[in-house]
């Protein structure tokens, strides 16, 4: 059985322009120790999906972790899951860390919340966790306040907090987006290393296909609140089936010698408050025809991958 089974996850927000369906009935599974990347551009619903799993935003559908539906948990059980069985790393460590508590106190908070432990033991464990995440001189840094740390070190501290209670699942929402490329390389390496050491599953939320290529076993591509394609990472990159995935891949630069204009995906991402009928990608799609503007394509499964398109590539 999969560690995480998500079915029909739906997240709606009430906006000025009416109801916005940020996540529109997505389903996916995640095995123990596996890395699934949810990839997509701003507003596609990838972060809302992640927040929904922890019920940080209200959601409908079901999300079973080891058989228990996270969306049906009572408040007490929910608190035990957050930071316990599921750890979360956010994009911007500076806004996620408490500026008036030391790193050590914040890690200890997580430890105290999930089982009584003495102050001294929590401190020892915090130092251990900081060491595990590659923070130099952890005995000293445990007393440090977030503002005294660099961006990379703050993200390491965030990761230390997230893994403090040995979660089965780590959700990382754009964990390296705010970081420089050399620091990004360090954090990606750290995530890979921790994942195999702690046998955690990783749900990686990102817009960056480079990060996906580094870490993911499987990939789900989101567009306008839906999963439009899912496949093992190597197969997705080698042969994308959805025209949007194909477009994203050609628009992503591959660090190679080439010149001439960049490949564009015409048009703009859709306005979620005013989605037309049919496939949300149709207005920008080179393959779209009359059917695409009427009938929303469903995710069709074929062996280990799936695509939601009436005219899948190849």
């Amino acid at each position: 059985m999969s560690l995480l089974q998500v079915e029909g996850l739906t997240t709606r927000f009430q906006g000025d322009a009416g109801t916005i369906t940020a996540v529109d009935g997505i389903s996916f599974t995640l095995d123990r120790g596996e890395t699934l990347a949810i990839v997509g551009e701003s507003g596609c619903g990838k972060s809302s999906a992640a927040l929904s799993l922890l019920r940080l935003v209200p959601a409908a559908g079901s999300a079973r972790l080891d058989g228990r539906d996270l969306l049906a948990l009572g408040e007490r059980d929910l608190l035990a899951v957050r930071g316990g069985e599921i750890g979360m790393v956010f994009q911007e460590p500076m806004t996620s860390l408490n500026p008036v508590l030391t790193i050590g106190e914040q890690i200890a908070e997580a430890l105290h919340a999930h089982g009584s432990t003495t102050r001294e033991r929590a401190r020892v464990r915090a130092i251990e966790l900081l060491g595990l995440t590659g923070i130099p001189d952890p005995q000293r840094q445990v007393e440090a306040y977030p503002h005294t740390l660099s961006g990379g070190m703050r993200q390491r501290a965030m990761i230390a907090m997230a893994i403090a209670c040995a979660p089965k699942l780590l959700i990382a929402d754009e964990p390296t987006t705010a970081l420089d490329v050399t620091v990004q390389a360090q954090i990606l390496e750290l995530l890979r290393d921790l994942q195999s050491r702690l046998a955690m599953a990783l749900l990686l939320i990102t817009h960056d296909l480079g990060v996906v290529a580094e870490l993911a076993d499987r990939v789900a591509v989101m567009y306008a609140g839906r999963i439009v394609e899912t496949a093992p990472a190597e197969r997705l990159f080698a042969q994308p089936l959805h025209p949007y995935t194909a477009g994203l891949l050609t628009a992503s630069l591959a660090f190679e010698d080439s010149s001439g204009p960049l490949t564009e995906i015409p048009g703009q991402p859709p306005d979620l408050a005013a989605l037309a009928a049919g496939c949300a990608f149709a207005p920008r799609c080179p393959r779209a025809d009359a059917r695409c503007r009427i009938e929303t394509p469903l995710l069709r499964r074929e062996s280990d991958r799936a695509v939601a398109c009436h005219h899948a590539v190849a």
Partner: protein
Amino acid sequence: MPLLEVENLAKTFAGGVRAVDGVSFSLDAGETFGIVGESGCGKTTVAKLVMRLIEPSAGRIRLDAVDLTALGQRALRPHRHKLQMVFQDAYAALNPRQTVGAAIALPLRVAGRSHAESRAETTRLAARVGLEGTLDRFPHEFSGGQRQRIVIARALALKPKLLVCDEPVSSLDVSVRAHVINLLGEMQRELGLALLFISHDLSLMRRIAGRVAVLYLGRIVEIADRASLWAVPRHPYTQALVSAVPLPDPVRTRARHRIVLRGDPPSPVNPPSGCRFRTRCWMAQEICQTDPALREVAPGHRAACHFA
């Protein structure tokens, strides 16, 4: 003769932050010159200095053989139209209470064009960047990519010779980024524009810049033509950067040899003595305590490393 010559440019901010510390480069008309580096390396400060948005602590900036650094703000004004800037955050660069038409017309009005002339030129510019019929709308009604096109139209209103682009697409989605980059390329060809392109994105830099300088803690550590730089980076920092570029290809990215640097870039308040990269460099020796000169290591290729 180069369009832009920057010589020993330096900027020390209050509190002793040496953001830019002796940077020299030149840029020909119509050329795209890139400055690449990580946060805090001083690349945005170089952009602002070239624009004279901030005053240099030392050094010369010559545009069309005119020493801009010798001019006061008033004397500088007749030269302002030659250089314009596109900022990273287009939303912050536009006045939220000003219509698109008023934003694009402002430089024309400041330059003394008549109302009718400005209006006509504004209409033409908006159409050129693909936003015809939107002059009466406000910035918040546009997407990020569209806003950046408005900023570009405004920057091009006075037909500058040099466009300084500071991370112009970093906050845009991949699918939209290409429109903006392609638009800049088209405008460059149409107007014979030179681009000073600042970015942390090596893949983008490799694609668009003919010559590139790599900046680390306020200094150029390597400068070369695109072919030479990316094929054979000579400075260890450039090598590490290149090896860390995220590649959208799981097979290639997992197979390659990656140099993972220790630690973070040191603070520019108190940079290391000698070679500024030596605290993170795997090749560092005693000699690195003395400052390496930026010297020619191949034709048209200079690097500041004792071992390059």
